[in-house]
């Protein structure tokens, strides 16, 4: 395999190791005495160094080596974990990251590492010598095996067979070490003469170097020939010594049994070494991301992939367009499956039913695989934020703690790829404009350390990502003044606007409320870009805030899951599908248990007041069903808010293909799409988020 084929594996793994280092460094900062963390960082750094060196990226290998030394000092308790030390290590990691990025984009990964190396070395002080000794030790260890008296020659399987067979036939095998005189002019000729002499005596089965190399004089002065012969050791010795310009001849009889054992031992050793290496590798990988050891099948398969990646390169890259085509074809299959299921249940033929059931199971598995191929946990995006928050808060002299909730929430890959940058903007915004300086916070009676919460969760057909801070909140007056100043709105507009709408002005272009423009944010372009990016993904951004208490930025993103689990319900003889992800539970309540509150029908459900939404009214159904004494409810939620959808009956749970209503029918209230049912009819999919205020 050529190097370029390894390159992708190298880049992928380097990124993983860097992420692991970053995560663990952050952990270490919180628990400076936890040497287990240091060991883990050390392991990642070590692997990185090894990979870098193997691939020939010297700067990377050198820098990681230096970093490793520092980590070693920490591990041995010779260096304390101080913010200064951490800063330097973080800088080094940054440099390594840059290199990997460079390599990934086709560069050679070289980078000026003098400055950072100097810093790392200054941390190490005198201990840099240790590393040198270490290298020297390994260097001296290597050649020891060569010093024995025996003539060095190893045989392969085939040669050993030949040797043992000829032994059975009474031949003797000799290893002959011939050393030519230093002054020999025509080495090739001498070799030829030796070979000829030996061939008169017996059969040459092997020579080291090979006969070809010997003829081309590609050797120093000595070579080893293995000969099968009936003649005695001394006879052979004499024959060779007759040739001129031969300095010495050394002959040893080959002990076939010994050779075999030698070979076995060697193989064993190699095997063990390989195994150790592998064990070490997998161990490092396994421990690297304990948080990712969740049991979703996709992650399992990806960790398998990692273990074998280096040797077998079991991953391939597939264009996302091809996955889309696959998905479309599969959607057709799911519709036909539904139809088949219906037909088979009508025909009531046992064999047909069995086959259809089997097919349903297989397509079910297939569906999971296809969907999983496209889904990734938001962790992919989130995991770079802790690092960012750390360096930003140091830069801004603020104390900020980032809490990440729901990092395992999965999103379609195309969306994952896009949301990173706008989220960076929003988090920066929270740190820069939201969280106050420690002094201000103390003066306000808040804890010194501000908290930024990054939250991801599924709700209905959407994934919500929220960024909440307990900072200063948004000053409505300031926004209004600024908006008027910039001519974004008029006085009249402002009067009619709700608080939320006013907050949304933040996202208008050319808007910045920070009193001083900082490096971090505040150029007034950020939030505008944020909104456009999310909107291009079909997302919606909203802001809520309480002055002095903090603010909440909420982003609603579509799942773009084209196959979803739904509960089919009947409302006034029409069928509707409610995404299972939005459903908390179903219930039946008696009419007498329904109360009126502010012109809104509510029920008391598990101690909570739950408003009722009558789907037949919302969808102004033309046909009314006869009144019953009870309501069938589907309790749905949006974040923490819940509502009870009143339906006529529950039909059951189905896997359906989400289809769009086309370009002529956009923005239909509370309908997010449609699907084709088993009987070929179309059912509408309810967008429960629009039904919950």
């Amino acid at each position: 395999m050529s190097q370029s084929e390894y390159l992708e594996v190298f880049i992928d793994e380097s990124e993983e190791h860097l992420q692991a280092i970053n995560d663990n460094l952050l952990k270490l900062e919180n628990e400076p005495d936890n040497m287990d963390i240091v060991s883990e960082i050390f392991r990642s750094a070590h692997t990185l160094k090894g990979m870098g060196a193997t691939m020939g990226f010297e700067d990377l290998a050198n820098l990681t080596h230096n970093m490793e030394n520092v980590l070693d000092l920490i591990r041995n308790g010779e260096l304390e974990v101080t913010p200064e030390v951490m800063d330097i290590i973080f800088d080094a990691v940054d440099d390594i990251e840059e290199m990997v990025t460079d390599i990934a984009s086709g560069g050679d990964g070289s980078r000026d590492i003098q400055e950072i190396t100097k810093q790392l070395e200054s941390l190490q002080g005198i201990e840099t010598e240790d590393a040198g000794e270490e290298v020297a030790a390994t260097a001296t260890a290597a050649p020891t095996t060569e010093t024995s008296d025996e003539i060095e020659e190893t045989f392969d399987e085939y040669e050993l067979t030949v040797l043992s067979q000829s032994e059975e036939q009474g031949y003797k095998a000799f290893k002959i070490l011939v050393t030519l005189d230093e002054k020999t002019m025509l080495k090739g000729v001498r070799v030829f003469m030796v070979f000829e002499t030996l061939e008169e005596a017996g059969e040459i089965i092997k020579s080291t170097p090979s006969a070809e190399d010997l003829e081309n004089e590609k050797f120093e002065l000595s070579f080893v020939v293995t000969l099968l012969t009936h003649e005695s050791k001394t006879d052979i010795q004499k024959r060779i010594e007759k040739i001129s310009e031969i300095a010495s001849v050394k002959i040893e009889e080959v002990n076939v049994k010994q050779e075999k054992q030698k070979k076995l031992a060697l193989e064993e050793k190699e095997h063990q070494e390989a195994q150790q290496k592998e064990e070490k590798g997998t161990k490092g990988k396994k421990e690297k991301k304990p948080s990712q050891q969740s049991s979703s099948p996709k992650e399992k398969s990806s960790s398998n992939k990692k273990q074998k990646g280096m040797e077998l390169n079991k991953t391939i890259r597939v264009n996302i367009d091809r996955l889309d085509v696959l998905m479309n074809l599969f959607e057709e299959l799911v519709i036909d499956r539904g139809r088949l299921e219906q037909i088979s249940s009508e025909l009531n033929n046992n064999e047909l039913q069995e086959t259809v059931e089997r097919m349903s199971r297989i397509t079910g598995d297939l569906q999971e695989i296809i969907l999983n191929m496209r889904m990734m946990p938001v962790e992919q995006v989130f995991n770079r934020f802790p690092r960012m928050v750390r360096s930003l808060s140091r830069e801004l002299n603020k104390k900020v703690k980032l809490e990440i909730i729901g990092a395992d929430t999965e999103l379609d890959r195309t969306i994952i790829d896009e949301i990173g940058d706008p989220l960076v903007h929003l988090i920066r915004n929270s740190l820069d404009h939201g969280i106050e300086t420690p002094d201000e916070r103390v003066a306000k009676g808040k804890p010194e350390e501000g908290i930024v919460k990054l939250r991801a969760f599924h709700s209905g057909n959407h994934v919500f990502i929220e960024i909440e801070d307990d900072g200063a909140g948004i000053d409505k007056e300031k926004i209004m003044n600024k908006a008027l100043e910039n001519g974004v709105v008029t006085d009249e507009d402002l009067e009619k606007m709700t608080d939320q709408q006013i907050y949304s002005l933040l996202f208008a272009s050319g808007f910045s409320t920070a009193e001083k423009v900082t490096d971090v944010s505040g150029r007034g372009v950020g939030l505008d870009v944020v909104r456009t990016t999310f909107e291009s993904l079909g997302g919606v951004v909203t802001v809520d805030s309480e002055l002095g208490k903090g603010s909440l930025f909420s982003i609603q993103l579509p799942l773009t899951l084209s196959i979803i689990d739904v509960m089919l319900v009947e409302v006034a003889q029409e069928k509707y599908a409610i995404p299972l992800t939005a459903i908390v539970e179903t219930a039946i309540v008696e009419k007498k248990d329904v109360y009126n509150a502010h012109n809104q029908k509510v029920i008391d459900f598990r101690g909570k007041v739950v408003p009722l939404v009558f789907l037949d009214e919302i969808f102004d159904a033309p046909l009314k069903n006869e009144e019953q004494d009870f309501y069938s409810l589907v309790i749905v939620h949006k974040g923490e808010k819940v509502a009870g959808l009143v339906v006529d009956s529950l039909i059951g749970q189905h896997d359906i293909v989400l289809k769009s209503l086309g370009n002529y029918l956009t923005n239909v209230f509370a309908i997010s799409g449609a699907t084709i049912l088993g009987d070929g009819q179309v059912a509408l999919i309810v967008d429960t988020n629009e039904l919950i205020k």
Partner: protein
Amino acid sequence: MTVAEKKDLKVIVFQLKDEEYAIEVDYVTSIEKMQKITRIPGVPSYIKGVMNLRGVIIPVVDLRSRFQLEEIDYEENTRILVLNKDGDEIGFIVDGANDVIDISSTDIEPTPEVVGGVKEEYLRGVVKMGDRLFTLLHLEKILPKVKD
């Protein structure tokens, strides 16, 4: 349109109330018998809903309702003309599909003020062939607005 009008047009002639109308055959992908339509809440009343056309969900417009003609119950002859305009498919419910004929662009005459109560803006002209008279529809004007 100048190029198109010089050439001969192939049109589908269909029935709506007691008049005949025509639409260019290029727009028509298929003619379907009446089938189950799923109502969509909260849309203009002339959009009857959506139907499943071989795995694709397409909106269906009742052309009588679109032209503010009285609506009648669908019957044996009722057809859905499936049209494709720039990749978006839409179905038109008509009283019946009668014919496919070739017309010459010279046969198209300007629309009289009012034809059978259908607003002038929806029409491209009137075609007279022998004793048959039918109205060529202006598809762009009839289609619901496409939103981005």
